[in-house]
């Protein structure tokens, strides 16, 4: 097997677009955490005095001052990723920015123990790990390709796993599960929508079946670019709806950042 893929412009473009999109997702992440900084400062909810015992050597980075510096560094690095006329910045600078955002995401996950949007941080971390591997590897090498395909595989797995679990749960077939999620105070779905859903069980059931079906068949994106485009379009509508109804805006941006990898995988298998 050849170690390089001569002239694979699609790979370079995929990495470039994912760098920009992941930078956007990371910038939103940093801004949101910055906006609620009083909650993780001294006297806040996630105050250092309570969480410090498990930090060990990372205490300087996770305390109030250190973590503010980490947030600002992550925001700066994320802006560099977005601006990413990476050709002008150079590969080392782009790699360093990606590594900085990766480190910031890891530190945030440690700081809050997964309570601040655990799932979206997980996907952002996956995208950043794959991107860093692709950037550190020689351009157009198999390793660079492996980084992108790792992201595509995790993205597909995220839908497939969620869909297969739903299939085994009877409330998802009857619509009760979707209605229960709409009622959960954690997501704060608009009350007129909840009231409508309670009086239209048939539509709720249909929506639940649609979600389950999409998640289970997302794997067909690998079959051809046409199928892939359809899956990406449905996925963006799905995540946009979830962002609007369930307030999960970060899911839209982190899953969106991973989408180019799926397009690349479909092109590769064509």
């Amino acid at each position: 097997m050849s170690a390089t893929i001569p002239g694979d412009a699609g790979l370079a473009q995929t990495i470039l677009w994912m760098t920009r999109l992941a930078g956007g997702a990371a910038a939103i992440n940093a801004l949101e955490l910055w906006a609620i900084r009083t909650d993780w400062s001294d006297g806040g909810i996630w105050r250092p005095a309570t969480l410090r015992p498990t930090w060990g050597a990372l205490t300087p980075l996770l305390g109030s001052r250190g973590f503010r510096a980490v947030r600002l560094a992550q925001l700066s690095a994320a802006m560099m990723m977005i601006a990413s006329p990476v050709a002008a910045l150079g590969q080392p600078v782009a790699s360093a920015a990606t590594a900085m955002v990766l480190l910031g995401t890891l530190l945030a996950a440690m700081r809050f123990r997964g309570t601040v949007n655990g799932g979206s941080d997980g996907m952002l971390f996956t995208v950043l790990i794959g991107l860093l591997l692709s950037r550190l590897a020689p351009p157009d090498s198999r390793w660079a390709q492996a980084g992108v395909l790792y992201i595509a595989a995790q993205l597909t797995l995220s839908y497939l796993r969620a869909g297969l679990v739903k299939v085994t749960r009877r409330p998802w077939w009857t619509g009760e599960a979707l209605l229960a999620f709409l009622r959960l105070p954690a997501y704060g779905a608009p009350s007129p929508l909840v009231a409508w859903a309670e009086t239209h069980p048939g539509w709720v059931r249909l929506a639940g079946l649609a979600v389950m079906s999409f998640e289970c068949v997302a794997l067909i994106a690998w079959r051809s670019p046409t199928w892939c485009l359809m899956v990406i379009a449905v996925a963006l509508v799905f995540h946009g709806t979830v962002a609007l109804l369930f307030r999960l805006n970060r899911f839209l941006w982190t899953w969106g950042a991973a989408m180019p990898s799926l397009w690349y995988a479909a092109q590769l298998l064509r």
Partner: protein
Amino acid sequence: MRLLLRTLLRLLLPAWGFFDVVGVVPVLEWRPMASEGQWGPWRPVLTAPRWQWWHAVCHPAGTRMLALHAVVDRATFACLQHDEDATESLTLVSHLVEQVATSTDPQGLTHGWAWRLVAQDGADLQVVYQREHPRALP
């Protein structure tokens, strides 16, 4: 080091288990002490922030609310399972209630407050933890 390894493991091998099914719903409630020995009614601590369409892009208050619900969930299930990590989760919940009690109700600030974690399973309600924070009158 243990925290680093646990976090890395969770991020590198994500479970991708979203919206499986709703089981027990944890609810955090608090009440102020209106006067010596007289408690006010229980009320929810967490209320959804106001929503605008552009929050689909960036929504710090919404992200905060989801995170606080995650803290409440973790504390409730830690209590239900008699988890040894329950102390830390309960302390975070205590900070949250203190913030709400002292910022929204002067009576709570003067006399004290109480809070409880309730596990709601359909029509069944189970109080899994309750704590009082009385304050000495000046």
